[in-house]
């Protein structure tokens, strides 16, 4: 087993339908039903939905904390995307979701960092909410979900980026296809490029960069100094699929992440860490400093908030 002394999970969510609308999950289930039907199976849609919903009953993150301990994960980034503008069956307002995430920071001190997002179409209210979360709640970054219907380089996001630039906060953006209830066109990694060019002091993270548009993600990480990627979703493929990513000189830009609770049906967090650290994992070929960068040092560096003083 590869030895690593410290692990920070750069990509998790709270397992609760309070933050992920039922319509989003139902879209995921429809795709699963299609895939199973292609194998000649006739699964009951409601039974499958119940399976998924049963894995979404950890609103206080107590089970996540327990699984992190078993897996040797010291801390995790909790991501809160805003689906409330695009999917109207959200049960809480985005403001209420921010409050709940603040409460989680208090419930589990020194365990989580929160990256929260607001759909830019909420206008000035959203900007004020994000600023309040940064100043008063201690949130550590901005989370974007472009499949909700906007480009991450849309000018309406620039006030958010100005807040991030002022406080030294990273921005994590989803990439790749998702629930069929949302659009896929804006999920291309390249859409981040103009924002990354316009805000060179902000570090941008491409979520799921090891499984979606991998070549595009590698190109952006290799040539744009302030773009990183996370490998969440690696659970979907054999571990050797990481090989192309690990041999391109961007290992200092790669961030470990699990995407909890998306893969709970597949196994516990410990099994995913073991998959990466197994003796015949391609990560076994990396030098110690590269492993440390992937598992904690790169994300830790991005999490070090440094608010500018006046005149800077």
């Amino acid at each position, binding site marked *: 087993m590869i030895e690593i002394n410290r692990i920070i999970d750069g990509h998790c969510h709270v397992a609760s339908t309070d933050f992920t609308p039922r319509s989003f999950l139902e879209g995921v289930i429809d795709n*699963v039903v299609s*895939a*199973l039907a292609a*194998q000649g*199976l*006739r*699964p009951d849609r409601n*039974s*499958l939905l*119940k*399976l998924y919903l*049963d894995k979404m009953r950890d609103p206080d993150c107590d089970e996540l904390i327990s699984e992190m301990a078993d897996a040797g994960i010291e801390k995790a980034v909790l991501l809160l995307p805003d689906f409330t503008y695009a999917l109207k069956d959200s049960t809480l307002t985005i403001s209420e979701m921010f409050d709940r995430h603040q409460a989680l920071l208090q419930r589990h001190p020194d365990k989580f960092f929160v990256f929260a997002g607001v759909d830019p179409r909420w206008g000035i209210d959203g900007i004020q909410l994000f600023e309040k979360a940064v100043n008063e709640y201690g949130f550590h970054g901005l989370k974007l979900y472009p499949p909700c219907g906007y480009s991450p380089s849309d000018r309406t996001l620039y006030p958010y980026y100005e807040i991030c630039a002022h406080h030294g906060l990273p921005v994590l953006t989803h990439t790749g296809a998702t629930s069929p209830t949302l659009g896929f066109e804006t999920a291309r990694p390249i859409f981040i490029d103009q924002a990354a060019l316009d805000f060179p002091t902000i570090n941008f993270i491409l979520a799921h960069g090891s499984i979606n548009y991998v070549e595009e993600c590698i190109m952006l990480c290799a040539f744009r100094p302030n773009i990183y990627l996370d490998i969440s979703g690696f*659970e*979907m*493929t*054999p*571990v050797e699929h990481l090989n192309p990513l690990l041999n391109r000189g961007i290992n200092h830009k790669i961030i470990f992440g699990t995407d909890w609770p998306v*893969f*709970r*049906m*597949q*196994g*516990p967090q410990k*099994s995913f860490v073991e*998959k990466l650290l*197994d003796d015949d994992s391609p990560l076994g070929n990396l030098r110690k400093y590269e492993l440390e960068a992937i598992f904690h040092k790169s994300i830790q560096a991005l999490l070090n908030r440094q608010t500018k003083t006046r005149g800077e």
Partner: protein
Amino acid sequence: MFGSRDRTETTVLKLLRETLPARSARMEILPEMTLQKDLAMDSLALLAFTVRLGEEFDIDLNQFADRIGDIRTVNDVLVTAKRIIEQTKAA
């Protein structure tokens, strides 16, 4: 290697084989093999196996899915599936 198998174990192994992805479909299945690493089963494959198990033995999907976190090897699958099937029959 497996010892002598009863009818339930034989059926469970048959269902497991039907579920394997292409890269492991022709492998000999051994009890100590792990589902994720050795047999390359992802979450969809595990779900497909769970549905097959439910259809074959008329068991609730949740009964097996709830225990997936404890299942690592083929032997774990056999032990867990047999226990659930016997509990269902006894109920």
